[in-house]
């Protein structure tokens, strides 16, 4: 009897071990493909400058810098539903940074999501996007990172929960969601469109936020940038397509357009990345974005209760009308309009609730060096009042979005 148990146990352990080895080989856990050893070009000033520009386009500094820390020394926690991943030190420090990396290691990290030793990196590092980046651009980025002063800044281990912290989990995730390699050219499209696609889908990794994530944290709908709630941030990244080209360009360059102002995570993207791009690159991005599918028009929302709207109207007159106008037309770019503002009328009311409760300044850009700020109203309005005023702005001046309840406000805060 006892013997039977032992044999059965051994069999289970053995088959698990076999399954693990098959998985390890089949899923290529250690990176068996040879490194691309092509010698990189000489790291002259021009290459470093190009790398610095590309690093802006990818907003590397955004994740690889802790709040108040030295740029590129890592330490910022990227919160995910599975735990927090801490961005590592990218300076050329031998112990804690990329000091012992070669251009070949860096190329593989970008295009195949592997660390120097071949271990799989977490997709919190958006390598499914960076895989589109060309070898030439990777070499420029690496030359730029090598030019930074080395800083000793030890990396923090991630706090991912089991089993998400295992290499096997990452391998399975890759099998589902990762398609390596640069995107194939699309016949009939202009060079500008291709450049735009390269920036938006590659370094810009826009769809990392502007897509709905499924239960495994993978991009839903084949990664189409149809908008989605940013996990853990509670801001809704709207669909990328369908914007008015001039407004999209103004938003990316200056942080504010005739139709709205960048707030929340997008304000950070504009501040650290898109505001620094050349006019030609912004135009290219717009040329690609304008052809992406727009959000389907939201289902007609029922008109809110008249008492709620009346209460909202009163609160609006007291707290909002001075800047946004009784007619909701505002005075862009200082005070964005609310009538016809896509952030106001998005299906989910997350952004309008966030904007009212937390306020915020438009990002500081060369175009707007002294931006205007919206006061936070979380301490002034209670949940029901905030819901009433949000409902009022979503259902006035031609806006026809759904009503907001106090529960929506509580959920968002």
């Amino acid at each position, binding site marked *: 009897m006892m013997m039977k148990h032992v044999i059965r146990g051994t069999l289970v352990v053995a088959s698990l071990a076999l399954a693990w080895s098959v998985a390890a080989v089949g899923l290529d856990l250690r990176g068996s493909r040879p490194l691309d050893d092509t010698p990189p070009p000489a790291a002259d000033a021009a290459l470093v400058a190009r790398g610095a520009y590309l690093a802006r386009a990818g907003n590397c500094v955004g994740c690889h810098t802790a709040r108040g820390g030295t740029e590129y020394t890592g330490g910022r926690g990227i919160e995910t539903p599975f735990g927090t991943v801490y961005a590592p030190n990218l300076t050329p420090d031998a112990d804690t940074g990329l000091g012992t990396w070669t251009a070949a290691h860096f190329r593989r990290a970008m295009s195949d999501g592997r660390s120097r030793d071949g271990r799989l990196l977490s997709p919190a590092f958006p390598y499914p996007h960076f895989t589109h980046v060309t070898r030439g651009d990777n070499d420029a980025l690496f030359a730029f990172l090598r030019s930074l002063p080395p800083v000793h800044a030890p990396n923090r281990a991630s706090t991912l929960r089991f089993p998400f912290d295992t290499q096997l989990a990452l391998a399975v995730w890759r099998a589902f969601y990762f398609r390596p390699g640069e995107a194939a050219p699309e016949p009939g499209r202009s060079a500008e469109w291709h450049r735009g696609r390269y920036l938006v889908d590659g370094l810009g990794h826009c769809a990392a936020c502007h897509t709905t994530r499924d239960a495994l944290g993978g991009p839903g709908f084949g990664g189409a940038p149809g908008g989605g709630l940013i996990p853990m941030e509670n801001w809704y990244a709207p669909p990328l397509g369908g914007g008015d080209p001039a407004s999209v360009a103004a938003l990316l360059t200056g942080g504010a357009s005739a139709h709205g102002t960048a707030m929340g995570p997008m304000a950070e993207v504009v501040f650290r990345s898109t505001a620094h791009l050349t006019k030609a690159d912004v135009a290219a991005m717009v040329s690609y974005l304008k052809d992406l599918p727009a959000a389907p028009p939201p289902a007609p929302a029922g008109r809110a209760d008249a008492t709620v709207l009346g209460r909202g109207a009163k609160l609006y007159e007291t707290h909002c009308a001075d800047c946004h106008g009784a007619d909701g037309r505002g005075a862009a770019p200082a005070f964005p309009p609310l009538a016809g503002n896509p952030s106001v009328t998005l299906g989910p009311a997350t952004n309008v609730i966030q904007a009212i409760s937390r306020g915020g300044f438009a990002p500081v850009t060369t175009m707007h060096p002294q931006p205007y700020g919206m006061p936070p109203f979380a*301490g002034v309005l209670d949940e029901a009042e905030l819901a009433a005023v949000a409902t009022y702005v979503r259902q006035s001046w031609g806006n026809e979005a759904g009503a907001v309840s106090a529960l929506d406000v509580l959920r968002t805060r």
Partner: protein
Amino acid sequence: MGSLQYVRMVLWSFFGIRRRARADAELGRVKPLPLLLTAIVLAGVFVTLLLGAAHWAAAATPVRVDGSMAQRVQACTACHGAADRTTRQGYFPRIAGKPQGYLFQQLRHFRDGRREHAGMAHLLAQMPDAYLADIAAHFAALDAPPPVPTPPGPDGERGEALATRGDPIVGLPACVSCHGTALTGLAPAVPGLLGLPRDYLVAQIGAWKTGRRHATAPDCMATIAQRLSVEDIDAVSAWLASRPVPPGHAPAGRPDAGTPACGSTR
């Protein structure tokens, strides 16, 4: 009698004054029903016009953007008013008239996480030093009346001793040695200690002691707060809050060389 005459009569009656002879003459000829109807219709038109004008005036009042700093920083002044404010969201000190360098450093500390306040961090996240300096200059140039002093509490003597002479036994420097002999601060970066409520002083010294508030090294106030006992924090805060702010309470100017070499002032 034509309808135009009815209209004329009603309009005259709206005006309220008319020559008696003409009014009497017309009154003899009118029929009551048409007059009443004309009056009601005209009154309706009049009210509609008035309401329309009011509505148009409200809707067409353009939002004025004057480009002033005051208009740009409404996100700040919504909480930081002309006086210190205690609300259910917490305590909001007045920032008007504090030294420019001090305000600039505090804005940087909030942005970079050396002082913790989620709301402040959110508002300042996308601001480079240049705009923080503009905001600091704007508030430093404003003037706000200081609050009314409060009683010094039972440990007034101990508080006064700490503030004016320090305590050599525990290695505590006097407040006056850095914050100015009048305790009104030193331009550009040392804040005044008068005109602040006791609770605020206790909270800030406490935050240094527990490590919730920092400056770049050398963090002088952190060192000092470590050496202060809870009783001493209370005594010195109560005494400082009991001192009236002297007239002309602007921070005393002093050459930069004289500013203490603390991280908070750089």
